[in-house]
């Protein structure tokens, strides 16, 4: 069928560079600049694919990425679109959808059973009897889908970048080139994007032999490339339009996220196929595909051709075929050739046979086109009684176009069907959007250039905020139709395909409508028209025409489905981009790693989960850390806590509003537990508030809520107009908690702060020096031992940490991690917000009524809700334990509590307690079981029920004596 032509004036191939590759195990050659399809065609391989459902033989249709007939896979990639992917040396390719080889596809027999596989067959078959479905499912999964994925592939990421411009021009054909130039000359900063590797578009392949167009082409391209205000992004597909003209440009190296002030759509049109029996045979292709083959790749598309004409472009294509040495058997015109212009006359004078008011009734051949059957056509139907057969190996169809308007729809442009041009055309454009060229119905070269200038001038004027009297949108539209309103021929034997991706035939759409799916959205989803990899580019327009005919309504009334990004599929590697996953490390991070800390993520922070010890399991190591704190001394890095300075005359008022407890009565030098709820009364954060001066407070927040707490404080002070300054010192300050009965003894040697109980009582906060560094000490009780939280500059933290570890060695100091801290606070019955509370937990459910001063505090966030919730409690957080020396399966967090087969609660925290010698935990349980039960049941992994004993809280040191127990006093 195909062979290389002599060098063409605008060819993309570089004949001095030969590329070797493999196809189905066979060595093949192509040239640099070839796409995979053109290289295969040049080698004589005309069969390029097998269709999705029926495994019908397929070849070139559009050569414009508007179909996926030529889909390949290699060891490294799948679903490679041969029509547009450049050939590379060393490629080793197979067809995606052939079982075996393309020629000997073992699944080709499916085509013989096509009558049993009509549209929607999978909704109705294989599910009765139900027991056989697993058998069918295996087969369906094997047969369905396109391409194979290998989990052995290495992860690829392509970095993205941001870019900005005044105007983005999409499409670098005649209109796009002119629009970009006009805008740039007016001073705009222009980006010109085109998905092809070379500029020119149809100005190249449709006007390749046109002498007049040649000088214009050269001039436009040169001016565009040389213009300092135009950036050219060739080989970049604009994959979607997002709010405020945010458009991703997808190129071979990755995505450029472009923000434009305005967009000019010069996106052109997509040629549409005719529908007739066997219109998918290899050898049947769109006229523009043949022109691309000739112009770009110097491929002779066939030996003897028939052209199905629905517009003047068909005749230009016929002329191109003649120049390429292809014999023309006939031109079959759906209407009258008298209306097709000078080129038609030229061809008639050359003796080319032209059949007016005729259509192709059927294409004939097994694996490739051998002949076409032609019949008289009245614009709607063929007279199958008056057919004639024409031998040929190539059939070009040129019956019409659909606007490449997907991104226009996304930008909220409105289009309506124009019966003069028989094409959907823009009628209303939103701000910042212009259109020009064939997408706007301007078809001749003169029209396209004039329309481009109009659009660019309008776009520039809009950017300047000027009122420019521009020509109306329709000023340069053609007055002749370039599309036939009904290029569709019925056939009693079917196989007239509307959607090539889905093997969707004309009768399938009629049957879908008969079944009640006669709305454009329903018929799409039931029939899958437009749902294949081509995303409807070659199928949607005909689908709309057919449904309009079925419904007896206009194209506009029939409507269209929603065009959504992406315009073409985008590789995951491009979407992934560079990995931006912020990570924060404390000042002691390196020390933790050196001491075998197993790190865990706490929000964006890395924290030690525990410190590994030789010969100890994770649980044993954690157990030892807990024991060290209880019996000796422990040190934990709590630098991740939120730390906020709240300053100013209204500081106290702000904190009163944000937290449930009253902070304005806090004495200087003391702290108070700070519970934050939202407007609905749900617990969102906790921490402490310390008062350093009349107008200076120091607030701590949980690691995961620090930023949100800062935002809440910031928002409220602005909303209420409070005289407050906030300083977020979360990163600037480090913090560590020294806990254990030797804590005071150890600290007193290295600080100038008076640590005596009288001078520095429990919950106090003091400022001073520690090892020569400014420090704040807070007496805290989270883990239930005598403890001091040390807050100091992150720059000094490691020095102090090392000093404490050294000085505490005689006392048996151990670093302890997050897991040990969880156990320690659990023994004290302290909650962790987000673990023991969920998105609905309010203070009454968490046994924190003491933190809600409804009567004594005039107002705080959430007060109104809590006043109602007080009497509406439906569940309660309870403590529980397992028997000592329990040997059975241990329940886990989130295991459910079950009573008579019903869920009555869940475990929120559970851990073995060194202090108590048994497993303890917290559970959120429905009332009345929370109040009245002594024993409850938990369902563990495997379904067994384990009995737990309800206990009072706290489990450990109920009187809080350990908070003040001090080794110095003992000594």
């Amino acid at each position: 069928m195909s062979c290389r032509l002599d060098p063409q004036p605008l060819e993309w191939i570089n004949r001095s560079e030969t590329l070797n590759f493999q196809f189905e195990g066979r060595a093949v050659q192509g040239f640099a600049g070839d796409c995979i399809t053109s290289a295969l065609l040049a080698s004589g391989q005309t069969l390029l694919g097998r269709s999705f459902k029926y495994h019908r033989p397929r070849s070139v249709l559009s050569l414009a990425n508007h179909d996926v007939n030529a889909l390949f896979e290699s060891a490294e990639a799948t679903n490679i679109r041969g029509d547009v992917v450049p050939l590379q040396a060393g490629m080793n390719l197979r067809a995606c959808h052939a079982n075996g080889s393309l020629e000997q596809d073992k699944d080709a027999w499916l085509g013989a059973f096509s009558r049993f596989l009509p549209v929607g067959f999978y909704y109705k078959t294989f599910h009765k009897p139900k027991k056989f479905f697993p058998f069918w499912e295996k087969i369906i999964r094997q047969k369905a889908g396109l391409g194979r994925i290998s989990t052995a592939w290495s992860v690829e990421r392509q970095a993205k970048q941001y870019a900005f411009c005044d105007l983005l021009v999409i499409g670098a054909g005649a209109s796009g080139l002119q629009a970009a130039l006009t805008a740039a000359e007016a001073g705009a900063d222009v980006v010109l994007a085109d998905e092809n590797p070379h500029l020119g578009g149809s100005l190249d392949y449709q006007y390749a032999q046109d002498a007049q167009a040649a000088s214009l082409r050269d001039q436009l391209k040169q001016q565009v490339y040389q213009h300092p205000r135009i950036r050219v992004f060739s080989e970049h597909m604009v994959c979607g339009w997002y709010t405020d003209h945010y458009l991703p440009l997808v190129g071979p190296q990755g995505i450029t996220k472009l923000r434009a002030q305005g967009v000019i759509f010069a996106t052109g049109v997509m040629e549409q196929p005719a529908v007739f029996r066997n219109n998918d045979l290899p050898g049947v292709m769109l006229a523009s595909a043949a022109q691309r083959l000739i112009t770009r790749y110097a491929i002779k598309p066939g030996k003897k051709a028939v052209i199905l004409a629905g517009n003047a472009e068909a005749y230009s294509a016929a002329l191109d075929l003649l120049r390429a040495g292809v014999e023309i058997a006939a031109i079959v015109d759906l209407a009258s050739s008298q209306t097709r212009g000078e080129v038609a006359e030229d061809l008639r004078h050359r003796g080319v046979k032209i059949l007016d008011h005729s259509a192709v009734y059927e294409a004939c051949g097994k694996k490739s086109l051998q002949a076409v059957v032609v019949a008289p056509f009245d614009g709607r139907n063929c007279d199958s009684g008056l057919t004639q057969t024409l031998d040929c190996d190539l059939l070009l169809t040129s019956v019409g176009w659909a606007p490449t308007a997907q991104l226009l729809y996304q930008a909220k442009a409105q289009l309506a069907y124009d019966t003069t041009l028989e094409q959907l055309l823009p009628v209303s454009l939103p701000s910042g959007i212009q259109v020009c060229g064939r997408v706007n119905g301007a078809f001749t070269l003169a029209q396209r250039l004039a329309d481009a200038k109009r659009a660019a001038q309008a776009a520039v004027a809009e950017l300047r905020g000027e009122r420019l009297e521009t020509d109306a949108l329709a000023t340069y539209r053609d007055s002749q139709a370039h599309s036939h309103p009904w290029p569709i021929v019925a056939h009693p034997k079917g196989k007239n395909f509307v959607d090539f991706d889905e093997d969707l035939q004309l009768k399938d759409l009629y049957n879908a409508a008969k079944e009640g799916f006669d709305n454009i959205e329903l018929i799409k989803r039931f029939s899958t028209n437009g749902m294949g990899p081509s995303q409807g580019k070659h199928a949607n327009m005909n689908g709309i025409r057919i449904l309009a005919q079925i419904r007896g309504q206009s194209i506009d009334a029939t409507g269209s489905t929603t065009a959504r990004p992406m315009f073409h599929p985008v590789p995951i590697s491009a979407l992934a981009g560079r990995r931006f996953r912020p990570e924060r490390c404390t000042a002691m991070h390196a020390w933790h790693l050196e001491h075998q800390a197993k790190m865990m993520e706490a929000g964006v922070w890395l924290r030690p989960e525990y410190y590994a010890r030789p010969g100890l399991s994770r649980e044993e190591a954690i157990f030892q850390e807990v024991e060290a704190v209880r019996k000796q001394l422990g040190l934990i890095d709590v630098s991740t806590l939120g730390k906020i300075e709240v300053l100013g005359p209204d500081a106290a008022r702000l904190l009163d509003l944000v937290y449930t407890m009253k902070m304005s009565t806090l004495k200087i030098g003391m702290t108070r537990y700070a519970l934050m709820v939202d407007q609905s009364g749900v617990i969102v954060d906790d921490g402490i508030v310390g008062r350093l001066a009349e107008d200076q407070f120091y607030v701590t927040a949980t690691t995961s809520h620090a930023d949100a707490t800062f935002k809440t404080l910031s928002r409220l002070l602005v909303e209420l107009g409070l005289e407050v300054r906030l300083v977020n010192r979360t990163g600037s300050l480090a913090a560590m908690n020294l806990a254990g009965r030797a804590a005071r003894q150890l600290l007193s040697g290295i600080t100038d702060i008076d640590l005596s109980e009288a001078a520095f009582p429990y919950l106090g906060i003091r400022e001073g020096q520690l090892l020569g560094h400014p420090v704040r000490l807070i007496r805290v009780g989270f883990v239930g031992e005598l403890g001091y939280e040390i807050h100091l500059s992150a720059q000094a933290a490691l020095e102090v940490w090392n000093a404490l570890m050294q000085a505490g060695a005689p006392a048996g100091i151990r670093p302890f991690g997050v897991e040990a801290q969880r156990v320690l606070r659990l023994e004290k019955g302290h909650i962790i917000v987000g673990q023991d509370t969920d998105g609905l937990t309010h203070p009454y459910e968490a046994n924190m009524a003491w933190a809600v001063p409804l009567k004594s505090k005039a107002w705080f966030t959430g007060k109104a809700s809590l006043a109602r919730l007080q009497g509406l409690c439906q569940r309660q957080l309870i403590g529980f334990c397992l028997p000592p020396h329990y040997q059975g399966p241990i329940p886990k967090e989130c295991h459910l509590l079950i009573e008579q087969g019903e869920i009555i609660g869940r475990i929120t925290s559970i851990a073995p307690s060194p202090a108590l010698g048994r497993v303890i935990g917290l559970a959120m349980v429905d009332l009345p079981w929370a109040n009245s039960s002594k024993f409850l049941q938990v369902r563990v992994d495997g379904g067994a029920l384990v009995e737990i004993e309800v206990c009072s809280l706290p489990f450990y040191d109920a009187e809080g004596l350990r908070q003040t127990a001090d080794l110095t006093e003992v000594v």
Partner: protein
Amino acid sequence: MSTPVHEPGDFLQLSLLQGWQVYLLTGPRSQADLIAAGLTPAQDLMSAVCQDGVLVARSGRDEYMVIQPPHCPSLHGHWCFPRTETLLRLSGPDWIEVMAQVCAYDFRQLQPGQWLMAQVGGVGCWLYYEADSAALLIGFDQSYQHYLHSTLQQVVADLNAGLSPAGKTQSAACVNPSDVLTGGAA
């Protein structure tokens, strides 16, 4: 403020600045504290002045950041808080290409001597375009140092190796922004 760190045509460079001190001053006495320290407060919001190597930026109504090189005397004030920051200097003729991969701001708009606060690689940063060196100073919380420094190093390395999202020949950030159409300063 600093000496140029590259020759024209050099590759991109990312340097970690050591020993610099950063302070945040806030409150009604902040301006007075600055003046008492011999520093000139920036006048406009989100602007900065550079004086004898010390950068003073106005980050709020009465909030200032002071960035001073090593060996400067410590700053004190009523509400003056030292910050623990990492400072990076990004230099080279195409540093804007680095920023195009990590920050959504149009750096063609940034003029020498201008100050900016933006997210870089997901981290809140302040940025200052040095007038004398034509380099970009980037400051952020030190806890992000490992992540952001290594991320920017990777971007710089990729660009120096000719790897760009738009290919070798296309610079997304080239062409000065138009002031004809938008009325902004070119």
